[in-house]
């Protein structure tokens, strides 16, 4: 904890669902005190997705992953006194992060100008689907429509078939990480100049930044890249091949002639592998349909782990297509401590994953909070309210 970089930085999180909360969790990993503002009036839907049937019904695993290490207090911002309390909190905070639609904070009287009035160097980081400016800023967005708008889905699918949804919606966690980059950049800038600002991060633009090949293919040559499934622009074999067992697969990527020869040796140099059309990279790429069937004919007799280990021993990029339980049980992932079992006061045993890096600078944080778990800390300790005041505000459904 001593080492955590953002120790002493207080962040108000007006966040829900995924992109905003995951951003908060990562900033909490870095040592920031992240205070999530919630309300019973409109719960973060991740609290109630896949409702586990706990007594309060306000905890589930998705929420626990994305709100790891943050604090929770309840404020019903539809009530003007709640907005005033939030401003009091802003006065003693460094950053406000939000992934609410761009109209929400201004509608509550909490636009950047209002926050700046109470805290002149405050940083506001907003994470809307399409940005807080421009003609389509108020279009309704979800992770799925964001990735569609950014150009991901049109390029995603099996060769010769229609586009598919990612199902995982990476546009959200990509937005989260851009949000972290934006927050830290603004904090660094404030450290140098003493100035805060409102940084706006458009999630759909974030998606476009991670598929530049597809965009530039059009800009440079006027072409729309076809959907390629597992195929590469030049490598072959390059795919997921069936292995022993139900729905078991292994991914193999052969990039060079040397790797191809090593691959043939592992397979025991079958007769077909000696064909001239497979002897060079361009030939393998041109004949990949046939090649893929032949490779699948070899992999199907082995488990995916056998294929991975044998090929990796020969210096070939190969890996098991892991599903979630296989991933959790995988020896490497276990050794790396990626998934962490936690005891949640409401949700019981829960499983979360950490951010994708190991660092001596990572803070040790508690599990995701119960709704309003830190009300006393925020209202009494930080804002100096009395028991009676807090009880009165709760009665009026301001603290709610």
């Amino acid at each position, binding site marked *: 904890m001593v080492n955590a970089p953002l120790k002493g930085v207080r962040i108000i999180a007006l966040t829900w669902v995924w992109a905003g909360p995951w951003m908060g969790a990562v900033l909490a990993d870095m040592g920031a005190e992240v205070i999530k503002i919630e309300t019973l009036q409109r719960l973060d839907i991740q609290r109630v997705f896949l409702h586990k049937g706990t007594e309060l019904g306000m905890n589930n695993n998705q929420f626990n992953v994305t709100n790891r290490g943050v604090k929770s207090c309840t404020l019903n911002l539809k009530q003007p006194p709640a907005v005033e309390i939030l401003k009091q909190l802003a006065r003693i905070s460094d950053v406000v992060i939000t992934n609410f639609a761009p109209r929400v904070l201004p509608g509550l009287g909490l636009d950047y100008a209002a926050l700046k009035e109470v805290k002149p160097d405050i940083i506001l980081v907003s994470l809307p689907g399409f940005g807080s400016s421009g003609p389509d800023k108020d279009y309704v967005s979800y992770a799925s429509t964001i990735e569609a708008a950014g150009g991901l889905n049109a390029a995603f699918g099996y060769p010769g078939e229609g586009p598919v949804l990612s199902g995982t919606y990476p546009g959200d966690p990509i937005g989260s990480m851009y949000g972290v980059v934006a927050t830290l950049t603004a904090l660094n800038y404030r450290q140098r100049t003493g100035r805060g600002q409102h940084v706006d991060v458009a999630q759909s633009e974030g998606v476009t930044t991670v598929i530049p090949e597809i965009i530039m293919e059009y800009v440079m040559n006027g072409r729309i890249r076809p959907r390629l499934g597992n195929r590469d622009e030049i490598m072959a074999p390059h795919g997921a091949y069936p292995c022993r067992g139900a729905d078991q697969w292994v991914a193999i990527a052969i990039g060079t002639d040397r790797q191809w020869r090593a691959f043939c040796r592992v397979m025991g140099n079958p007769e077909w592998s000696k064909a001239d059309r497979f002897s060079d990279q361009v030939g393998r790429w041109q004949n990949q349909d046939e090649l893929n069937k032949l490779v699948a004919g070899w992999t199907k007799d082995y488990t995916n782990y056998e294929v991975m280990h044998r090929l990796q021993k020969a210096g070939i990029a190969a890996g098991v297509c892991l599903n979630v339980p296989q991933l959790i049980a995988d020896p490497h992932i276990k050794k790396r401590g990626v998934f962490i079992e936690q005891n949640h006061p409401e949700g019981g045993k829960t499983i979360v994953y950490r951010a994708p890096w190991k660092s001596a*600078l990572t803070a040790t944080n508690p599990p995701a909070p119960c709704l309003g778990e830190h009300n006393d800390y925020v209202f009494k300790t930080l804002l100096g309210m009395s028991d009676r005041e807090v009880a009165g505000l709760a009665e009026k459904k301001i603290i709610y």
Partner: protein
Amino acid sequence: MFYQALDDIKVLEYGNLFSAPFCAKILADLGAEVIKIEPPGCGDPTRATEPFLKDAPEGSGLFQYLNMNKLGITLDPATATGRKIFAELLKHADILVENNPPRRMKELGLTYRAVHGINPRTIMASITPFGQTGPYKDYEGSELVITHMGGVGFISTRESDINKEPIKYPAHLMSFQAGLSAAAATLGALYRQRVANLGSHLDISEQESVIQNLNSAVAHYWYLHQIVARTDVLSIAPAHILPCKDGYIYNAFSEEHQWRRFIEVMGHPDWADSELFKDATARALYWDALKPLLLEWTMEHTVEEIYRWSQERGAPLGAVRTADQVVADRQMATRGFFVAVGKQTAGNLKYPGVPYTFPEIPRETPAAAPALGEHNAAVYCGRLGFARRDLVKLKEAGVI
């Protein structure tokens, strides 16, 4: 640079392809001085990676995108002289970003311990397929392999044969997401470096970066013991990608009123009274009946028409945008997302920019990516005190 936020920060990039160059690009776009080290001869393999303007294989659009705003030098740290020069460069570096195999860095005498010995305040961001520890740390990775080993290949939603192989996302999306995550981690460490003047080692795993997308799939497994795999039957409808006159649209209605607005747009408000389509569950049950009715209308209209009409009425429909439509998007255009880059080898083209706006930080036109070794003289003579004559010797010795 786009923004002069980090213009007092010096970064050394020693890596290739996607993750490390993208991480360093994010820092360069925020104003950091990035010196990109490439091997003498052919340089970073992305120099030879599609797309190229009018298919003339020089001036890769991907290389340009990834390396704009950087200085480029050539250096072979495997030579004794090269190693000494690398150490000199490190003495001036706040950050070292690299994505080499851990055993390669060890061979080169560039472990974190060694780096720390040369410059204790350097932040070393190491991005590798499986991280610096664990049984797979020396395994070969690639976009295909990390994607499937990160568990996302099974999770796309589609209507085709669910027994087909799991597939990867388009282009190098997961490697880029890893680079982005690495930039977030690095900026966290930088905040501490400014305060405490201390370096640190960040062990970033591309596989773990993929895992961060699995939020909902992990919850499904943990609570419902379901393995989310290639869903073809959805529990709610419509939540599908549907073809239209000139492309595809995506229905993403999470609330009933959104569906009602959509059927109003279609000119069928009476469907609201239909027993078969009364809610999302019923519509999923009778999807086979509903789908042709929707198609009858969507096939008559364009992506833009359906998208605009629906969104203007508050129905959160998604446009499945192809690259040409992304480039032409009025929202991104208004926000100035696509940008011209300084003098380019390949025409005067616009590239995807950065997804954030920092109103307080001065903005500049980004500089083009360097030619191979373009800044050798500036860096070696200008910074390290070599004479121009020495550069000839270094070149002859294969060092630069």
